[in-house]
């Protein structure tokens, strides 16, 4: 078992700093396998200078976030959809 693997809770600060809303409680749909669940449950790898969120179902990359000296890049290419449950 990979003890460096965390979950989306560890990405909540960086994501909220970008989007100004709490994102990890949102439900994401994986574009690879269609698995549906809160981003907080995504398998998360914190690798300086950024982090990667992977689907717990098929391991596809959902979100990639990279801090560069002058800007922050975020790719959401693995997410088919985000749902805000009210």
């Amino acid at each position: 078992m990979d003890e460096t693997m965390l979950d989306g809770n560890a990405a909540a600060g960086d994501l909220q700093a970008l989007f100004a809303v709490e994102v990890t409680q949102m439900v994401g749909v994986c574009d690879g396998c269609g698995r549906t669940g809160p981003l907080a449950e995504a398998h998360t790898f914190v690798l300086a200078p950024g982090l990667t969120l992977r689907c717990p179902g098929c391991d596809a990359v959902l979100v990639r976030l990279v801090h560069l000296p002058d800007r922050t890049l975020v790719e959401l290419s693995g997410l088919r959809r985000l749902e805000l449950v009210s």
Partner: protein
Amino acid sequence: MSAPAPLRWQTARIAEVREETPRARTLAFDRPAWPGHRAGQHVDVRLTAEDGYRAQRSYSIASPPGTPRLEITVERLDDGEVSPWLAGEARAGDELELRGPIGGYFVWEPAKGGPLLLLAGGSGLVPLMCIERHRRAAAPEVASTLLVSARGPADLLYDAELEGSAVLTYTREQPPGWTGYARRVDRELLAAVAPPPEQRPRCYVCGPTSFVEVVAEALVALGHHRALIKTERFGATGG
């Protein structure tokens, strides 16, 4: 869902330091500039070295909502970049940067109700203690079961506060005459301790990745509802 709010780093002054165990300390900060936190949330802490090198880590909030000070409990990881300073050298009056409160998934509020099943591995106890403290203060009518897995008595956080109110299991070292659990949390132990699935307990599991995976799978195997199981893994590396 709370209203959108920018998340900004702010300078925080350490007001008090308390020893919890030989490896862990609680740091109390004067109330930060935010409207308050929810039980289970965390903060990010950032340290900057004299040469400009920065290191950032997340720490769960230990103090319940509504208390004047913000408290975090930090366990020292010997090869860590941040925790050795926080858990070993930081003194009252020192300043650091923090941002928060962070997270909306691993939280509990009295309106969510119970019964609560709080399952802690090591310092994964911190956010669960926050939830339990909040429950005791704001909703004592909600039933709660707190199970704590620790390596030994010397590693148990908040021991005086837990006495008589938590189920303990010591995985490596037991005190003399110990008659309680002395193994890692498994399905049988959970079956003995947890409310039955028919009561639909809200389960919060926090600890190292291996603890969280084993416990969450065992809960599902026992018939607990997946949608009622919330998990938070903390890093065994990085510190």
